[in-house]
């Protein structure tokens, strides 16, 4: 009997939880706020689902109930992607070391 592809996805999922566990414990506590904003940005990769949904309309009508929800999701996820990465970049650029010449 063939293995259901779901099992492979489940394996990826479980292993990623463990990867996440070890990677996040190694994050220095002083960067916990940027960690939250960057996880926010990357979880907006949900935009890939939104794009598929948005493009689900046919050539005569781009907008149907399903694709409208897709377009809304695209806009929301895009706010997060741009906002999340940029605010993280802005925060990280503020973390500076003591100047040696002082």
């Amino acid at each position, binding site marked *: 009997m063939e293995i259901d592809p779901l099992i492979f*996805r489940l394996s990826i999922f479980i292993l990623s939880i463990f990867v996440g566990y070890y990677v*996040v414990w190694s994050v220095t506590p002083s960067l916990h706020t940027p960690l939250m904003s960057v996880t926010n940005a990357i979880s907006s990769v949900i935009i890939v689902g939104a794009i598929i949904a948005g493009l689900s309309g046919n050539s005569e009508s781009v907008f149907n109930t399903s694709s409208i929800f897709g377009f809304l999701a695209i806009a*929301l996820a895009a706010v997060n992607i741009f906002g999340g990465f940029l605010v993280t970049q802005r925060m990280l650029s503020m973390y500076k070391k003591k100047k040696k010449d002082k």
Partner: protein
Amino acid sequence: MISANLSAIFYLVSGVLFILALRGLSSPETSRQGNLFGILGMIIAITVTFLSTDNFSTGFVFVLIFILVGGSIGAFIAYRIPMTAMPELVAGFHSLVGLSAVFVAISAFLNPEAFNLGVPGNIKLGSLIEMSIGAAVGAVTFSGSVIAFLKLQGIMSGSPITFKGQHLLNAIILVSIVVLIYLLCSSQSSNLFWILLVVSFLIGFLLIIPIGGADMPVVISMLNSYSGWAAAGIGFTLENTALIITGALVGSSGAILSYIMCKGMNRSFFNVILGGFGATEETASNSNKEQRPVKSGNADDAAFLMKNASSVIIVPGYGMAVAQAQHALREMVDTLKKNDIKVSYAIHPVAGRMPGHMNVLLAEANVPYDEVFELEEINNDFANADVAFVIGANDVTNPVAKTDPQSPIYGMPVLDVEKCKSVLFVKRSLSPGYAGIDNDLFYKENTLMLFADAKKMTEDITKNL
């Protein structure tokens, strides 16, 4: 245009890049590079989606328009937001992740053909389960984050809202969500799908209202975790590796942060989630309040003490963020350093309203991060320091946590501020902190209370130095 296998590999690449993005945060030097990995991963994922749908018609133009509109709003917010408002921003962003998960699930439910999940009314069982879990968790994330946002923003009172039978009601709703998902999967009824969404929105709202303002670090981390699980649920529906990996990463990241925050308060996760903390103790402590003498001083006294010190440890808390005193504080420290006084900062894990809140504010005020220390790193240094300068922190310095087993905060790790030769405590009044208990530190021999606004006091001290 590109095969399903090739796009699956690219999604895997972007998942790996996201792991590297988090890995970069292990030190500030590598963090900026990590963020670039994250951006690269996102660009790959979006590009591959466009190529694999191979639909560059009118719909594609609209997709770009919506990305641009959302993106400009996001960029505008990212550049304009003050660092003190970071907890609100993160809560707001979580709500958007939750809502977009809900929208994608709705879209997939209405038009499963577009996602290869079957036809309306006959969606593949596995996909339907994944979809409804993703939608339910997304809805909880959305409404919970909105409440957290309103509380942090001060639009809604930060005090816990409790009522009789609250836990019972929540339990009933949680059970009904499970039942609804079961019924939905067996009947494929769209009415049940909408009911499930409404009930999930409701429970997100009910779960967060009983949790008080100072427990927000746990709540934000928890919602961070939920947004990850919602994304993973949708990832399973769409059979998308990038989304599954990311969801798992974000989910475990949020869970670890909630754990760290709970440990910082010596409270169990359930104790925080069930809420209502601080509401009962407050009345008790008010009734048997004894008048104990406190020593209070002015900026001049404080400046005198610090001028004669050789080392000073600063203990910032949420009050510093409220008063926006971080820049004034940095100026004071600069003056101290000119007088050859050694200055370091001590950060309690739950200081502020979200994990790492104080670190970001100090970084914003140009405080070098190697002068800022975590509780375990610096707690032994208090005994050798001359002055501890407590600005906007309270409960995290309360020695009662070590001495009084009756106290609600007993066992919570605290900064050993009282071991310093002298303690300067900037506070507006003697009122108890969030836990509703008196701070013993106020009445110690070596404590000098500075009753004033944190920013104004810091500025005045600098003038007197």
